[in-house]
């Protein structure tokens, strides 16, 4: 018996207006996040992974961005049509978010306490004292020493790692059902990244919470996630359980990403690399968006966008998986798959 997913996105399209041009950073994605699950969204800059998270938060820039189509169902509520006031009740309460830059994501002119009290003020009816106590205990939960002092300090007095912990405690305060972490460790040093990842693992274990982890770092995904979604040029190209993805990536893009990691190559040897670059929005034609860089592309790839092919929960948008076109094109030797 399957529990209903916490978050379910269907056929989401997002548009940005810039001048007279319309840019479509998200072109029809479907994804779901189950309760207590950690889903990783992987992709390179500009693939639409951050826009996805902002769309879920309802934080698209008001004037220029809009949801063109699709639905976002969160815990039984349809978010796309939600009035701002109701949305505000969800933000910071049911869904919270951690951002990439801990240095700029905290307001420099307010103390940690002032900033952390905000979600509690908005969503919980608590007295001042109670708020303070809750904040201190949350700060302790994320492993900040001297929580009683830090609450009255300003962001610039803290190091990057501590700030990211503060951001995490901000996201934790109202015990959300879903936490979105947008590149939470990218700006941090390796040793600090290790600390934060450990912390996130611990929190995920102790709280009844789903985590949507957005990252470009496959290593982070391998360590953290239950399920992985790979995005490319505004689309989801592959989705599977974490072991399945690492064992047997199906989409050539996912394969390319993995193979280009130095650790997956022989030392000093030539690294595998995906040729070319992410297409401009205007260059995306009818076909597969990855076709122009794909080592296995064939005629159909340029002519027609591939549908989702699914094999035991492992989904991929690639014509190679089409049993019909397979025979004609697939060259057995060309895809070295790690096992």
């Amino acid at each position: 018996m399957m529990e209903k997913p916490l978050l379910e996105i269907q056929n989401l399209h997002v548009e940005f207006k810039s001048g007279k041009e319309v840019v479509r950073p998200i072109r029809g994605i479907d994804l779901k996040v189950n309760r207590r699950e950690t889903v990783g969204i992987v992709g390179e800059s500009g693939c639409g992974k951050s826009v996805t998270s902002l769309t879920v938060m309802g934080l698209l820039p008001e004037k220029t961005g809009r949801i063109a189509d699709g639905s976002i169902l969160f815990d039984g509520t349809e978010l796309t049509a939600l009035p701002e006031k109701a949305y505000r009740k969800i933000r910071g309460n049911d869904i919270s978010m951690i951002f990439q830059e801990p240095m700029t994501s905290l307001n420099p002119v307010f103390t940690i306490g002032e900033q952390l009290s905000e979600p509690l003020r908005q969503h919980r009816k608590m007295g001042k004292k109670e708020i303070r106590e809750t904040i201190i205990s949350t700060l302790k939960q994320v492993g900040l020493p001297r929580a009683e002092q830090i609450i009255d300090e300003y962001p610039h007095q803290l190091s990057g790692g501590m700030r990211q912990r503060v951001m995490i405690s901000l996201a934790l305060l109202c015990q959300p059902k879903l936490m979105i972490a947008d590149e939470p460790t990218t700006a941090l040093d390796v040793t600090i990244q290790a600390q934060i990842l450990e912390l996130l693992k611990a929190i995920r274990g102790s709280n009844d919470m789903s985590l949507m982890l957005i990252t470009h770092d496959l290593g982070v995904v391998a360590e953290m996630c239950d399920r992985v979604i790979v995005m490319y040029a505004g689309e989801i190209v592959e989705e599977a359980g974490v072991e399945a993805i690492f064992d047997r990536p199906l989409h050539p893009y996912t394969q390319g990403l993995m193979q280009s990691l130095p650790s997956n190559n022989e030392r000093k040897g030539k690294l595998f690399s995906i040729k070319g670059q992410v297409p401009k929005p205007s260059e995306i034609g009818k076909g597969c968006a990855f076709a122009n860089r794909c080592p296995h592309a064939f005629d159909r790839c340029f002519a027609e966008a591939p549908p989702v092919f699914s094999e035991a929960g492992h989904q991929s948008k690639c014509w190679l998986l089409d049993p019909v076109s397979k025979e004609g094109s697939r060259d057995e030797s060309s895809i070295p798959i790690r096992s």
Partner: protein
Amino acid sequence: MLDFVIKRVIQVGIVVLLALTVVFFLIRLSGDPTPLFLPPDAPREQIDEYRSKLGFDRPLLVQYGEFMKNAVQGDFGNSLRSKEDALGMVLQRLPATFQLAISALVLSLLISIPLGVLSAFKRNSIFDRIAVALTVIGQAIPSFWFGLLLIFIFAAQLKVLPSGGGGSIVHMILPTLTLAAYSIARFTRFTRSTMLDVLRKDFIRTAKASGVPTPRLIARYALKNSLIPIITLVALDLGTLLGGAVITEVVFSWPGIGRLLLQSLLNRDFPIVLAGVFIIALIYAVINFVADLLYAFVNPQIRVR
């Protein structure tokens, strides 16, 4: 903190002394005051006698040394014309100037900050466009023209407000408006653009993600961040308001420092001009100093070290 103050005091001292030096030589170049005071039929010997009595016949450097020696003790000499203590005369005009400048400043802040904030928030709306256009116009009007226009309308035609003179609140309305027109425009534009900057910041996104409602977001979060650069601008402009009110003071017969300085400049009344420069430079420096302190007060990144 203390050494910061000491350092600033020394800096202020240097700036003021240099300003005095420059103006001392400049004004000596501007001409001979004696013919302006003495009756036109005064014979040349008389003029020479008077000049030597004032010490203007000595070498310039000697005069400069003498002047500086006295100036550092707060003695700028007596007005050539009225023979009163020059510094005293300047100080006497100071309250009126302050009164006008501060009221103009308060008025501009009261109008411009809400206007700028709203304008930034409703960016590109009709409201914003009108506000932007108005502020540009506010900066484009020569202040004496605007002042005369106000007098023409409110004093001469409608006869509801006095045309000038110092004193009561009623007297202050028109000059305050005139003086504030430019600052309102400047502050509004500045508030708008800093606000736009702040609204683009990551931490605003964080606050939004915490579920903070928009009015609170602007009033509490964004405004405090914008305040920091605004304080610096306000400090700069208060200096200009104080010293640069010449035109407003002349147009509205306001008994302030700018008018005295202009008159003294025309009369070549050197001691007053120098005392005036001293006071203005000093005020300017003090304002900047206070602005720095305020800046540090509002900005915890400086305060907490």
